[in-house]
């Protein structure tokens, strides 16, 4: 198969996903490694971020050893694409070690993030330990939408994080929350294209 022909490769993965589904094999898995976050989004499904973190979360966080064990168990049960999420996964001090465990177990490590903590140096480090891709969620496409839903000033930080991904992590995906004012703003449809120009999604 030619490496220059993307269509059969996409077909191959799609077929594998279908076969795993038929076999009840959990090919895709997501683990929330921390409840901590550097944003306080109104719509957060973890807990009400306008208040302090509930003690049942604070006092019952998984230890690093438990997370390493869960990752190994997931992969042993058939998981191949492992997403590390949160909270904000980049806040976890042992994130790099978790990625290394996934890579050592011959699986694919991905990250779900709000992008605020990504810098060129951090992206290099993540690529170095074997991270294969990042899904970044944007809460709108303006400072205004972040101010309404999340935190003032965070939009520009997120954009800087996305720009930092340009080289080291070859695959990333943007997940953009649609909010009503966006539909009235045609520039919204142009900005993402500028951000991702030159990247494979």
């Amino acid at each position: 198969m030619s490496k220059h022909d993307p269509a059969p490769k996409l077909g191959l993965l799609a077929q594998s996903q279908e076969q795993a589904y038929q076999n009840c094999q959990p090919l895709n898995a997501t683990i929330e490694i921390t409840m901590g976050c550097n944003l306080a989004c109104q719509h957060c499904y973890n807990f009400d971020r306008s208040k302090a973190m509930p003690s049942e979360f604070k006092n019952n966080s998984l230890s690093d050893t438990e997370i390493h064990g869960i990752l190994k168990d997931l992969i042993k049960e058939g998981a191949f694409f492992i997403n590390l999420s949160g909270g904000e996964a980049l806040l976890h001090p042992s994130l790099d070690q978790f990625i290394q465990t996934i890579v050592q177990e011959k699986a694919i490590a991905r990250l779900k993030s709000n992008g605020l903590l990504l810098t060129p140096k951090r992206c290099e480090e993540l690529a170095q330990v074997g991270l294969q891709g990042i899904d970044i969620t944007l809460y709108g496409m303006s400072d205004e939408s972040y101010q309404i839903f999340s935190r003032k000033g965070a939009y520009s930080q997120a954009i800087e994080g996305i720009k930092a991904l340009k080289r080291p992590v070859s695959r990333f995906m943007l997940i953009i929350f649609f909010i009503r004012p966006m539909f009235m703003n045609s520039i919204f449809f142009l900005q993402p294209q500028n951000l991702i120009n030159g990247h494979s999604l």
Partner: protein
Amino acid sequence: MSYKKRSDLALKMIGEQLVIIDSKIGKAVHRLNDVGVFIWDHIEASSSEEILAKMMDEFEVDEAEARSDLKQFVAELEALHLIEKKQ
């Protein structure tokens, strides 16, 4: 001749097939069928002649066909940089 598998490949058995993701060199996805998986499983520990003998035991195939398939498959794995000759 014995071979070594590349250590940085992501691998997963799905049903009877092996999916290989090569993110570094070929940047490609490969899938091996049951015969391919059989050869892949033995390629580091056995010589070509030993693999051939095991294939004859495992699959209903004549020697000439098995020899030809094995040679072609190993050459393809090597060309894709999924395996390399042991020093």
